[in-house]
């Protein structure tokens, strides 16, 4: 295999990008959000059609018009969201879509044998008979990789594969990747985490704004240099100045395990006036299965409580329960002197939680956060449409609302043409800025953030961190649920590991190391 080259003209998403991946190579594809990494790979996999450009595999030019062509050419891709049928077994999911199934009668024995063989060869342990919906994310990802291998992929694209994995699972995955390249495959790893790139990639290509910036050998570079290339000079320089602690923090979070600025005030957890006090919570998931049983959580005003955990261990349920979105089956929640759920039966309606000062920044911004077809003004108004501040003579006063929106756009640096722009037209980072602007406009007393920086570029991530700091400094209690352990460590005054709805360990700032927290995220209880 000599190389893959792609070129585009006209389209801004990718400005004539070249990429060459060698045999036996793990190639890291780095860049911030919107850099064009995923777009480029979607072209290679046939999901997008390139306007211009060529793909060569093993020195032969190939036309890739659809994923089918890509698969035939030996290209496999594992997306961030898995395309699996929940009620099918692992084997059925892997075989699905391959052609020779032998007419009406499915003979899966042979397929199963091959899957077992593949999974042993590459260290991707999985039970071929397990039903996919019962499997955790890490295993489902293995299924997805096996699917690509089963179809004879020589080039495997992994799109942000480590987002939902524990440190241990990441190590396992990287082991499997090495086994694959040792057998002559090529692996392209899309990521924006520099540390993991350094640990597994042979070479890396950095992209920014749809352009190829640099391709470097691992031996010839270091994390700091990569970070600088990735973000461009301005942000990195700002971070180096040192007085901007937030910039330093972001780079620290991305680069490695350096300590953080000690500007955090350690809050006395016994002083609870005004903070969140939730005790004996009983919360069920969407299928009615009780996930939290007698779960308690207290956050003092001005304290940032970080919940570390692998996705699917109850983060969504906890965030929604604490935000008043998901009904509680039991337990009490008090915010300051106000009882939001408690002895007098079920909790209050969501609107009462909002008016008590709970602001929720949901994980799924598009699904839970915005009205895509409505203007920014309307989006900012959502949730406070009944407050007197935006009313005149009983009717909504759009003039005031629009003025507020203009201010919010300026304060939160939302890149848009103005308050009338549709929220759905904004980029992910700007949508998050709108959601934060809305949350802060209510002067929250409890801020619930779930994966607040997922998918954001460094500039926006930095911005979110600043805002969280700012909120805490004004006495707001912050609950941060994040699957990015670096982020949790960077921001939190206290950290709790969450596994399957249980608290498996708590640390004060600076106490736990990544691996100890990671172990508790997999269900081991912290020895105290």
């Amino acid at each position, binding site marked *: 295999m000599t190389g893959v080259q792609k070129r585009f003209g006209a*389209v*801004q*998403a990718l400005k004539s990008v070249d990429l060459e991946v060698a045999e036996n190579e793990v190639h890291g594809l780095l860049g911030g959000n919107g850099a064009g990494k995923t777009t480029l790979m979607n072209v290679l996999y046939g999901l997008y059609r390139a306007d211009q450009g060529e793909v060569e595999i093993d020195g032969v030019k190939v036309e890739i018009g659809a994923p089918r062509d890509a698969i035939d050419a030996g290209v496999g891709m594992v997306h961030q969201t898995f395309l699996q049928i929940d009620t099918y077994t692992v084997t059925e999911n892997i075989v699905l879509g391959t052609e020779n199934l032998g007419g009406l009668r499915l003979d899966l024995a042979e397929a199963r044998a091959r899957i077992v063989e593949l999974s042993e060869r590459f260290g991707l342990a999985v039970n071929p008979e397990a039903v996919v919906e019962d499997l955790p994310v890490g295993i489902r990802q293995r299924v997805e990789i096996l699917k690509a291998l089963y179809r004879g992929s020589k080039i495997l694209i992994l799109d942000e594969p480590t987002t939902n994995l524990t440190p241990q699972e990441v190590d396992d995955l990287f082991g499997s990747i090495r086994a694959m390249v040792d057998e002559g495959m090529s692996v392209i790893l899309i990521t924006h985490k520099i540390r993991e790139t350094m640990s597994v990639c042979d070479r890396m290509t950095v992209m920014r704004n749809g352009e190829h910036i640099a391709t470097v050998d691992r031996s010839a570079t270091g994390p700091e240099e990569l970070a600088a290339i990735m973000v461009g000079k301005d942000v990195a320089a700002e971070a180096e100045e040192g007085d901007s602690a937030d910039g330093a923090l972001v780079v620290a979070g991305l680069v490695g395990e350096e300590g953080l600025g000690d500007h955090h005030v350690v809050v006395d957890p016994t002083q609870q006036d005004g903070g969140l006090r939730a005790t004996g919570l009983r919360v069920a998931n969407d299928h009615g299965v009780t996930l939290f049983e007698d779960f308690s959580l207290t956050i003092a005003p001005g304290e940032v409580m970080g919940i570390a955990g692998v996705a699917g261990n109850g983060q969504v349920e906890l965030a*929604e329960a604490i*935000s*008043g*979105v998901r009904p509680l089956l039991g337990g009490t929640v008090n915010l300051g002197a106000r009882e939001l759920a408690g002895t007098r039966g079920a909790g209050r*309606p*969501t*609107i009462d*939680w*909002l008016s008590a000062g709970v602001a*929720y920044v*949901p994980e799924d911004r598009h*699904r*839970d*956060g*915005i*009205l*895509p*077809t*409505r203007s920014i003004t*309307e989006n900012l*108004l*959502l*949730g406070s*449409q*009944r407050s007197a501040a935006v*009313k005149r003579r*009983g*009717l*909504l006063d*759009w003039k005031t609302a629009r003025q507020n929106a203009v201010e919010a756009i300026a304060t939160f640096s939302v890149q*848009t*043409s*103005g308050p*009338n*722009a*549709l929220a759905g*037209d904004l980029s992910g980072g700007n949508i998050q800025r709108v959601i934060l602007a809305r949350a802060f406009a209510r002067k929250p007393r409890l801020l619930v953030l779930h994966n607040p920086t997922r998918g954001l570029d460094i500039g926006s991530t930095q911005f979110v961190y600043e805002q969280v700091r700012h909120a805490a400094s004004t006495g707001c209690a912050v609950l941060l649920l994040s699957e990015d352990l670096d982020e949790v460590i960077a921001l939190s005054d206290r950290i709790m590991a969450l596994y399957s709805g249980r608290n498996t360990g708590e640390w004060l700032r600076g106490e736990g190391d990544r691996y100890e927290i990671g172990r508790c995220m997999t269900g081991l209880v912290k020895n105290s």
Partner: protein
Amino acid sequence: MSETTTTPPGAGPQPGEQLARTSGGTLRMAWAVVPYFVSVLLAFVAGGVVILLLGNDPFRAFESVLTTSFSTQFGLVETMHKWVAVVLCAYAFAIPLATGKFNIGAEGQLLMGATAGVAMGIVFSDLPMVVLLPVVLLAGVLAGAFWAGIAAFLLVRFQVNEILSTVLLNFVSFAFIDYVASHVWPDRGAGHPATIRVGEGALLPRLGDAPSVHAGVIVAVVVCVLVAIGMRRTATGFEMTAVGANLRASLVHGIRTSRLAGAGLVVGGALGGLAGAIEVAGVHGKMLEGMQSNFLILGIIVGLMARGNMVAVPFVAFGIAVLEVGASSMQRTAQVPVEVVLIIEALILIFVLLSDVVRDRLRGAS
């Protein structure tokens, strides 16, 4: 929108850059209005081809379709009367649609409103107009709201699909008015299932010399203004829009979505009922089988064409009313079957919906 570059679909260099976000209101307005004109034009061209294939003169046909409403006062009156029912049925569809619910029961709600109105008009036929007329209209509103309320209750309480329940309730209403018209207050001499006439006090007054429009037009105009204000300027209206835009996000932000969806259905049904009462009090003076005409389908067409914009509804409804009135005169003068107009209406709708796709393509090569 005079000096703005209003590129119709098909033309337009770099539309990606100049889309509505940059120069704001005017351009956005142009993006919203131009597709309508293009769609209407295309629909008439396609309709003309159909008429040509039928062996008739399309220009003569279109002349009578488009001018009947304006060439005689009678035509104008008929158009306004049509408009009242169409616009109310369009709201009956569009308001629940704002919350993401499909009310396909406007004709049932109209018939129930008519039944209630006619019942009041007959039972209390001796009362003076100042008392009886409001009672008739109010009864229509309540009956329509009640009829849609059944679907709303089933939806909120048991998650019964509102499309099914509203459609099925239409059939119940057919049987119901048939019973009322042939057994309760039948007019034996009519030769067609119909009730006897309501009392004089139940009739909407006429405005001006005959042929003149009934005062229901004023009622409808008031409704239009109230709906526009209600959707745009009240918290409830905003919440409805929010629920229609993203149900999950609305729920997360404290809006009681299912209650609101039910309320949308009830309000829509109330307006459908009002349409029925006005038909009784302004047009027929009684209730008769088949009085629902094709208002259901016209209301849906108008509601879809307006695409959630409550201000657009009355204008679109007026255009449709013109076409509908013109249709019958076209049949007389150009021997073209009335159904051709329905074809054109449907084509306009299809082209308007299609224009979304075209516009998105034009805008977003990005």
